[in-house]
Protein backbone atom coordinates (compact mmCIF):
# COMPACT_ATOMS: atom_id res chain seq x y z
CA UNK A 1 0.00 0.00 0.00
CA UNK A 2 1.07 3.57 -0.71
CA UNK A 3 0.24 6.85 0.96
CA UNK A 4 0.84 10.52 0.15
CA UNK A 5 0.65 13.35 2.67
CA UNK A 6 0.05 16.87 1.36
CA UNK A 7 2.10 19.57 3.05
CA UNK A 8 0.62 23.09 3.05
CA UNK A 9 2.37 26.14 4.51
CA UNK A 10 1.38 25.84 8.17
CA UNK A 11 0.67 22.10 8.19
CA UNK A 12 2.12 20.68 11.40
CA UNK A 13 0.84 17.11 11.59
CA UNK A 14 2.25 15.91 8.26
CA UNK A 15 5.25 14.19 9.84
CA UNK A 16 3.12 12.70 12.60
CA UNK A 17 0.87 11.13 9.96
CA UNK A 18 3.84 9.78 8.00
CA UNK A 19 5.43 8.40 11.17
CA UNK A 20 2.19 6.81 12.29
CA UNK A 21 1.55 5.16 8.90
CA UNK A 22 5.14 3.91 8.86
CA UNK A 23 4.87 2.54 12.39
CA UNK A 24 1.51 0.78 11.95
CA UNK A 25 1.76 -0.40 8.33
CA UNK A 26 5.51 -0.50 7.74
CA UNK A 27 5.23 1.74 4.67
CA UNK A 28 7.07 4.89 3.64
CA UNK A 29 4.53 7.63 2.84
CA UNK A 30 5.50 10.36 0.40
CA UNK A 31 5.23 14.02 1.30
CA UNK A 32 3.63 16.14 -1.45
CA UNK A 33 4.15 19.89 -1.67
CA UNK A 34 0.98 22.00 -1.95
CA UNK A 35 2.33 23.90 -4.96
CA UNK A 36 2.97 20.77 -7.03
CA UNK A 37 0.79 20.26 -10.09
CA UNK A 38 0.19 16.58 -9.54
CA UNK A 39 0.19 13.86 -6.92
CA UNK A 40 2.83 11.15 -7.28
CA UNK A 41 2.01 8.32 -9.66
CA UNK A 42 -0.09 5.81 -7.71
CA UNK A 43 -0.57 8.12 -4.72
CA UNK A 44 -2.55 5.56 -2.72
CA UNK A 45 -4.18 7.08 0.34
CA UNK A 46 -3.99 10.89 0.14
CA UNK A 47 -3.94 12.55 3.56
CA UNK A 48 -4.56 16.24 4.21
CA UNK A 49 -3.00 16.65 7.65
CA UNK A 50 -3.75 18.89 10.61
CA UNK A 51 -2.18 22.24 11.28
CA UNK A 52 -2.86 25.87 10.52
CA UNK A 53 -2.59 26.06 6.75
CA UNK A 54 -2.09 29.65 5.57
CA UNK A 55 -2.30 30.77 9.18
CA UNK A 56 -6.04 30.00 9.26
CA UNK A 57 -6.48 33.35 7.47
CA UNK A 58 -9.88 34.22 5.98
CA UNK A 59 -11.52 30.90 6.99
CA UNK A 60 -9.73 27.76 8.19
CA UNK A 61 -8.78 25.68 5.16
CA UNK A 62 -10.11 28.19 2.63
CA UNK A 63 -6.84 29.00 0.93
CA UNK A 64 -5.44 25.49 1.15
CA UNK A 65 -8.61 24.32 -0.63
CA UNK A 66 -7.53 26.49 -3.59
CA UNK A 67 -3.87 25.38 -3.56
CA UNK A 68 -2.47 24.08 -6.85
CA UNK A 69 -2.25 20.43 -5.73
CA UNK A 70 -5.97 20.35 -4.88
CA UNK A 71 -6.94 20.06 -8.55
CA UNK A 72 -5.24 16.67 -8.67
CA UNK A 73 -6.61 15.72 -5.26
CA UNK A 74 -10.10 16.36 -6.72
CA UNK A 75 -9.28 14.21 -9.73
CA UNK A 76 -7.98 11.45 -7.44
CA UNK A 77 -11.20 11.62 -5.40
CA UNK A 78 -13.36 11.69 -8.56
CA UNK A 79 -11.54 8.53 -9.74
CA UNK A 80 -12.51 6.81 -6.48
CA UNK A 81 -9.13 7.28 -4.77
CA UNK A 82 -9.07 7.54 -0.99
CA UNK A 83 -8.71 10.99 0.59
CA UNK A 84 -8.56 11.54 4.35
CA UNK A 85 -8.65 14.96 6.01
CA UNK A 86 -7.69 15.24 9.66
CA UNK A 87 -8.54 18.40 11.65
CA UNK A 88 -7.33 21.25 9.39
CA UNK A 89 -7.44 18.68 6.58
CA UNK A 90 -11.15 18.20 7.34
CA UNK A 91 -11.62 21.96 7.09
CA UNK A 92 -9.81 21.93 3.74
CA UNK A 93 -12.14 19.18 2.46
CA UNK A 94 -15.32 21.05 3.43
CA UNK A 95 -13.93 24.27 1.93
CA UNK A 96 -13.15 22.27 -1.25
CA UNK A 97 -16.72 20.94 -1.25
CA UNK A 98 -15.25 17.45 -1.40
CA UNK A 99 -17.19 16.94 1.83
CA UNK A 100 -20.51 18.46 2.89
CA UNK A 101 -20.76 21.07 5.61
CA UNK A 102 -18.67 23.83 7.08
CA UNK A 103 -16.55 23.98 10.23
CA UNK A 104 -17.30 26.89 12.57
CA UNK A 105 -15.59 28.17 15.71
CA UNK A 106 -16.04 26.06 18.84
CA UNK A 107 -19.18 26.92 20.79
CA UNK A 108 -17.01 27.65 23.87
CA UNK A 109 -14.86 30.07 21.80
CA UNK A 110 -11.85 28.30 23.30
CA UNK A 111 -9.04 26.34 21.70
CA UNK A 112 -9.53 22.78 22.92
CA UNK A 113 -6.58 20.44 23.31
CA UNK A 114 -7.68 17.26 25.05
CA UNK A 115 -8.58 13.63 24.65
CA UNK A 116 -12.11 12.91 23.53
CA UNK A 117 -14.24 9.87 22.90
CA UNK A 118 -16.00 9.25 19.63
CA UNK A 119 -18.42 6.55 18.55
CA UNK A 120 -18.04 4.73 15.26
CA UNK A 121 -21.30 5.26 13.36
CA UNK A 122 -20.35 3.42 10.18
CA UNK A 123 -18.00 0.46 9.78
CA UNK A 124 -18.73 -0.02 6.08
CA UNK A 125 -16.27 2.59 4.81
CA UNK A 126 -12.72 2.05 3.50
CA UNK A 127 -11.47 3.87 6.61
CA UNK A 128 -13.42 2.08 9.34
CA UNK A 129 -13.82 -1.58 8.39
CA UNK A 130 -11.46 -2.66 11.17
CA UNK A 131 -13.75 -1.01 13.75
CA UNK A 132 -17.19 -2.12 14.82
CA UNK A 133 -20.23 0.06 14.59
CA UNK A 134 -20.93 1.48 18.05
CA UNK A 135 -17.32 1.07 19.19
CA UNK A 136 -16.06 3.95 21.35
CA UNK A 137 -12.60 5.30 20.51
CA UNK A 138 -10.30 7.59 22.45
CA UNK A 139 -8.44 10.12 20.33
CA UNK A 140 -7.03 13.61 20.93
CA UNK A 141 -8.51 16.79 19.50
CA UNK A 142 -6.72 20.13 19.20
CA UNK A 143 -8.67 22.87 17.48
CA UNK A 144 -10.35 26.26 17.78
CA UNK A 145 -12.71 25.73 14.85
CA UNK A 146 -14.28 22.29 15.00
CA UNK A 147 -18.02 22.80 15.16
CA UNK A 148 -19.52 20.85 12.27
CA UNK A 149 -22.36 22.80 10.65
CA UNK A 150 -24.91 22.10 7.96
CA UNK A 151 -28.36 23.62 7.49
CA UNK A 152 -31.00 21.36 9.14
CA UNK A 153 -32.50 19.92 5.95
CA UNK A 154 -29.07 18.95 4.64
CA UNK A 155 -28.18 17.46 8.03
CA UNK A 156 -31.20 15.16 7.74
CA UNK A 157 -30.02 14.06 4.29
CA UNK A 158 -26.54 13.42 5.65
CA UNK A 159 -27.96 11.19 8.38
CA UNK A 160 -30.30 9.35 6.02
CA UNK A 161 -27.51 8.59 3.60
CA UNK A 162 -25.31 7.22 6.38
CA UNK A 163 -22.56 9.77 5.84
CA UNK A 164 -21.96 10.46 9.54
CA UNK A 165 -18.99 8.25 10.40
CA UNK A 166 -17.96 9.48 13.89
CA UNK A 167 -19.87 11.23 16.68
CA UNK A 168 -18.51 12.70 19.91
CA UNK A 169 -19.87 10.62 22.78
CA UNK A 170 -19.39 9.93 26.48
CA UNK A 171 -17.03 7.07 27.41
CA UNK A 172 -20.05 4.73 27.67
CA UNK A 173 -21.07 5.58 24.10
CA UNK A 174 -24.05 7.76 25.01
CA UNK A 175 -24.58 11.15 23.39
CA UNK A 176 -24.66 14.24 25.58
CA UNK A 177 -23.85 17.93 25.17
CA UNK A 178 -21.42 17.43 28.05
CA UNK A 179 -19.40 15.05 25.86
CA UNK A 180 -19.56 17.21 22.72
CA UNK A 181 -16.38 19.27 23.11
CA UNK A 182 -16.91 21.82 20.32
CA UNK A 183 -20.70 21.91 20.12
CA UNK A 184 -20.83 20.22 16.70
CA UNK A 185 -24.36 19.82 15.35
CA UNK A 186 -25.69 16.34 16.16
CA UNK A 187 -22.33 15.62 17.84
CA UNK A 188 -20.74 15.05 14.42
CA UNK A 189 -16.97 14.46 14.57
CA UNK A 190 -16.43 12.94 11.11
CA UNK A 191 -18.28 12.59 7.81
CA UNK A 192 -17.74 10.89 4.47
CA UNK A 193 -18.74 11.87 0.95
CA UNK A 194 -21.55 10.13 -0.91
CA UNK A 195 -19.10 7.78 -2.62
CA UNK A 196 -17.49 6.78 0.67
CA UNK A 197 -13.93 7.38 -0.55
CA UNK A 198 -13.42 10.77 1.13
CA UNK A 199 -13.47 11.08 4.93
CA UNK A 200 -12.87 14.02 7.22
CA UNK A 201 -12.68 14.07 11.00
CA UNK A 202 -11.58 16.49 13.71
CA UNK A 203 -9.89 13.95 16.08
CA UNK A 204 -6.33 12.88 15.32
CA UNK A 205 -5.94 9.13 14.67
CA UNK A 206 -2.21 9.63 14.04
CA UNK A 207 -1.79 10.82 17.62
CA UNK A 208 -3.46 7.67 18.92
CA UNK A 209 -1.75 4.89 17.05
CA UNK A 210 1.02 3.69 19.35
CA UNK A 211 0.85 2.55 22.97
CA UNK A 212 3.41 5.15 24.02
CA UNK A 213 0.91 7.83 22.97
CA UNK A 214 -1.71 6.58 25.41
CA UNK A 215 -4.17 5.20 22.87
CA UNK A 216 -3.92 2.94 19.86
CA UNK A 217 -7.49 3.51 18.77
CA UNK A 218 -6.38 5.35 15.64
CA UNK A 219 -4.30 2.48 14.28
CA UNK A 220 -7.27 0.43 12.95
CA UNK A 221 -7.99 3.33 10.58
CA UNK A 222 -4.68 2.71 8.83
CA UNK A 223 -5.30 -1.05 8.88
CA UNK A 224 -8.77 -0.49 7.40
CA UNK A 225 -7.30 1.51 4.54
CA UNK A 226 -4.63 -1.16 3.93
CA UNK A 227 -7.29 -3.87 3.91
CA UNK A 228 -9.46 -1.90 1.48
CA UNK A 229 -6.55 -1.29 -0.85
CA UNK A 230 -5.65 -4.95 -0.77
CA UNK A 231 -9.05 -6.08 -1.95
CA UNK A 232 -11.95 -4.01 -0.75
CA UNK A 233 -14.05 -3.98 2.37
CA UNK A 234 -14.93 -7.52 3.32
CA UNK A 235 -17.38 -6.81 6.10
Amino acid sequence: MRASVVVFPGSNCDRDVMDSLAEVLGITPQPVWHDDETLPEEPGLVVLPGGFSYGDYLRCGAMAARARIMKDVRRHAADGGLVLGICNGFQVLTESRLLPGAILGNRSRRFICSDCTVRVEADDTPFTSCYEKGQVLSMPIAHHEGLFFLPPDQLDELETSGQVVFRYCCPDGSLSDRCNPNGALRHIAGVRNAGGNVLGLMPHPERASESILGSQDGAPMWRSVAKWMNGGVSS
Partner: protein
Amino acid sequence: MTHIARIYVSLKEGVLDTQGKAVAHSLQRLGHDSLKDARIGRYIQLRIDAPDTDEARRRADAMCRELLVNDLIEEYTMELEPCE
Protein backbone atom coordinates in the same frame (compact mmCIF):
# COMPACT_ATOMS: atom_id res chain seq x y z
CA MET B 1 -9.72 52.70 -14.22
CA THR B 2 -9.13 51.64 -10.62
CA HIS B 3 -12.12 50.87 -8.45
CA ILE B 4 -12.43 50.23 -4.78
CA ALA B 5 -14.75 47.46 -3.61
CA ARG B 6 -15.82 47.38 0.02
CA ILE B 7 -17.12 43.93 0.82
CA TYR B 8 -19.01 43.09 4.00
CA VAL B 9 -19.21 39.38 4.74
CA SER B 10 -21.57 38.11 7.42
CA LEU B 11 -22.80 34.76 8.63
CA LYS B 12 -26.18 33.78 7.24
CA GLU B 13 -29.21 33.85 9.48
CA GLY B 14 -29.36 30.60 11.43
CA VAL B 15 -25.59 30.04 11.44
CA LEU B 16 -24.27 30.09 15.00
CA ASP B 17 -22.21 33.24 15.62
CA THR B 18 -20.35 32.58 18.86
CA GLN B 19 -18.36 35.84 18.65
CA GLY B 20 -21.51 37.88 18.10
CA LYS B 21 -23.18 36.22 21.06
CA ALA B 22 -20.20 36.91 23.33
CA VAL B 23 -20.05 40.55 22.24
CA ALA B 24 -23.81 41.03 22.73
CA HIS B 25 -23.50 39.52 26.20
CA SER B 26 -20.67 41.93 27.05
CA LEU B 27 -22.59 44.96 25.80
CA GLN B 28 -25.65 43.94 27.80
CA ARG B 29 -23.52 43.63 30.91
CA LEU B 30 -22.35 47.19 30.27
CA GLY B 31 -25.97 48.24 30.63
CA HIS B 32 -27.04 48.48 27.00
CA ASP B 33 -30.46 47.02 27.70
CA SER B 34 -31.82 48.05 24.31
CA LEU B 35 -29.43 45.72 22.49
CA LYS B 36 -31.27 42.86 20.84
CA ASP B 37 -28.48 41.10 18.99
CA ALA B 38 -24.93 41.50 17.65
CA ARG B 39 -23.46 39.76 14.62
CA ILE B 40 -19.75 39.78 13.79
CA GLY B 41 -18.65 39.77 10.17
CA ARG B 42 -15.62 40.52 8.06
CA TYR B 43 -14.70 43.58 6.02
CA ILE B 44 -12.59 43.16 2.89
CA GLN B 45 -11.37 46.04 0.74
CA LEU B 46 -10.18 45.39 -2.81
CA ARG B 47 -8.66 47.70 -5.41
CA ILE B 48 -9.50 46.47 -8.90
CA ASP B 49 -8.52 47.69 -12.34
CA ALA B 50 -11.46 47.47 -14.75
CA PRO B 51 -12.71 49.48 -17.75
CA ASP B 52 -15.99 50.36 -16.00
CA THR B 53 -17.87 49.91 -12.75
CA ASP B 54 -20.00 47.01 -13.99
CA GLU B 55 -16.93 45.06 -14.99
CA ALA B 56 -15.22 45.86 -11.67
CA ARG B 57 -18.29 44.56 -9.85
CA ARG B 58 -18.29 41.37 -11.93
CA ARG B 59 -14.65 40.79 -11.08
CA ALA B 60 -15.22 41.42 -7.38
CA ASP B 61 -18.22 39.07 -7.41
CA ALA B 62 -16.05 36.38 -9.00
CA MET B 63 -13.46 36.82 -6.23
CA CYS B 64 -16.19 36.48 -3.61
CA ARG B 65 -17.53 33.32 -5.25
CA GLU B 66 -14.13 31.72 -5.75
CA LEU B 67 -12.54 32.40 -2.36
CA LEU B 68 -13.71 35.27 -0.19
CA VAL B 69 -17.16 33.97 0.74
CA ASN B 70 -18.35 30.47 1.64
CA ASP B 71 -21.94 30.65 0.48
CA LEU B 72 -23.00 27.70 2.61
CA ILE B 73 -22.59 29.81 5.75
CA GLU B 74 -21.90 33.38 4.61
CA GLU B 75 -23.47 36.18 2.56
CA TYR B 76 -22.06 39.52 1.46
CA THR B 77 -22.88 43.00 0.32
CA MET B 78 -20.62 45.26 -1.69
CA GLU B 79 -20.07 48.97 -2.18
CA LEU B 80 -18.07 49.85 -5.25
CA GLU B 81 -16.79 53.13 -6.62
CA PRO B 82 -14.05 54.45 -8.89
CA CYS B 83 -11.00 55.80 -7.10
CA GLU B 84 -7.75 57.55 -7.98
